[in-house]
């Protein structure tokens, strides 16, 4: 009787088994990495549920931060994010334009790239030291919204530069060449052809910058955020540029570690609001990216 030609040889079987083990092993690793995200979000929500309401958002912290809501820190975070955004977006976008449209492949460009990589890699607490030394003390801003925002702006600059560069790089070279050929200058080409075609990517970068700035704690701890500063409830324009402010991330740190006898739900509520803000902002950037990518014509 001849051998079944479709019978697996031992070698093939070993190959198939190894393949199977590898595939399931790697899948398991990927899932184990993702599980924490889901578990953590669920756990935080579960613990925060008793306190989550509109009142929690709209009330100031009260009774030595053992009661009340998160209005003042919430507004403070908005302030810090918006001001840092106003500073870092133009610088970051222009820097990316320089790197992608003007820079030649020389030592200066290599140096700038290296600086961007390192700016992204500097520990957040070193950014805090820099903010304290440069803005608070040297520039004489004192501990203020402005000093904290500038520190955040420099810290989040690499995010915008990286995202904008990628967006500019994805605009086909032919678009630029066509524009130059009809007599447009470099800047006109950028202004009318390159930027409109890469706006979705730039927007993604800006949004990511928002989420990064909203979540940071260390850089603002010593440059402008304070433990407690009440503002009129329901009023958005409550801080001046040179006031100190509260911030959500700092507030979470404070009530979780510095204040004794805080009711359990309070820090969980704060954590959930902070987490949701950041995740929603990120989700928005993902949606924008997916929608605009599907609309792209080239």
């Amino acid at each position: 009787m001849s051998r079944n030609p479709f019978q697996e040889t031992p070698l093939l079987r070993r190959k198939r088994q190894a393949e199977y083990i590898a595939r399931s092993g790697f899948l398991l690793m990927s899932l184990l990495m993702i599980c924490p995200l889901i578990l953590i979000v669920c756990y935080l929500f579960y613990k925060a549920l008793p306190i989550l309401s509109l009142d929690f958002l709209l009330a100031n912290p009260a009774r030595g931060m053992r009661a009340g809501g998160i209005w003042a820190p919430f507004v403070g975070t908005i302030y810090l994010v918006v001001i840092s955004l106003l500073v870092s977006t133009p610088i970051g976008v222009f820097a990316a334009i320089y790197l992608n449209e003007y820079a030649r492949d020389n030592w200066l460009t290599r140096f700038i790239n290296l600086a961007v990589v390192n700016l992204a890699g500097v520990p957040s607490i070193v950014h805090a030291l820099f903010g304290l030394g440069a803005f608070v003390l040297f520039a004489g801003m004192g501990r203020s919204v402005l000093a904290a925002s500038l520190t955040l702006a420099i810290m989040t600059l690499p995010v915008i530069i990286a995202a904008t560069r990628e967006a500019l790089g994805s605009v086909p070279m032919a678009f630029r060449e066509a524009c130059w050929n009809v007599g447009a200058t470099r800047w006109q080409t950028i202004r009318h052809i390159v930027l409109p075609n890469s706006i979705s990517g730039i927007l993604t970068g800006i949004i990511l910058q928002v989420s990064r700035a909203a979540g940071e704690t260390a850089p603002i701890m010593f440059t402008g955020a304070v433990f407690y500063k009440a503002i009129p409830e329901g009023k958005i324009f409550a801080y001046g540029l040179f006031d100190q402010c509260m911030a959500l991330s700092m507030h979470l740190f404070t009530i979780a570690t510095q204040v004794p006898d805080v009711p359990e739900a309070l820090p969980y509520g704060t954590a959930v609001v902070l987490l949701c803000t950041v995740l929603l902002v990120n989700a928005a950037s993902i949606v924008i990216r997916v929608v605009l990518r599907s609309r792209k014509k080239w």
Partner: protein
Amino acid sequence: MADRRRFEVLGELIIETVIRLCGISAIIFVFGIFFFVFREGSDFLFHQLNFVEFFTSPEWYPTSVSHKRYGVLALMAGTTSVTVLAMLIAVPFGLGAAIYISEFCSPRLKETFKIVIELLAAIPSVVWGFIGLTLMNELIIKLFNAPIGLTVLNGGIILALMSVPVIVSIGEDALKAVPDSYREAAEALGATRWQLTYKVLLPAAKNGLLAAVLLGVARAIGETMAVLMATGHAVKIPTSLLDSVRTLTATIAAELGESPVHSDHYQVLFIIGILLFSITFMVNLTADLIVKGIKNK
């Protein structure tokens, strides 16, 4: 018409200058960071700091009345222990996930994984720290019968979860950079996906994967809030996973607010800042050179 032309030329000139200035801003900021951190700490660094004591003494008593001692050995041991543990967890998982996402899964699943990783990377460090302080703390106390859960183990796990997204996304880029012809050649010889991965892709992408690990390390060393909240506050050289430690970053965050401006203690904290800046600078530089090396090949 001539006026308009002149206006355009002038406008072009101005905007180009602005763009060039912004282009070099990153360099200015990196130098600015080094300069200002150095400036605040330089006085003490050059005149009073005992380098031997600073690097070899585990005694950190910056506020002692009789004899102030500034030894960062215990703090460095804290940073090292937490970082090493985090990497022991994060490197296999991160690289495994990067391989799975890059080589094994369907395009649709790939998109989902990438989005989840992006979200994982977005969780603020203070929220991670809070999770370490509450959930992980309780878990460790229950599981190991430990008196306190704010330990090397806690900080290491939290840091691992934080650096995994970095390792996965950079690692995946590295695998993606391997030319498809390599894959096709291997498959034409009858290799399975797994054989392809460990015989062809891993050797071809090893520099990129190394860079991914290094950037994960840099992230773990520089992380502040999470380790501040999750590792307890004991300045000592850890002897087991269930010891509390304190890291370099956490020390600055915990003590800067309490030290008077320009006091010795304050300046030593800035010197620790210089140390941290130098360490992460070296690590990032190495990672960057490795990646550049790949591109030039």
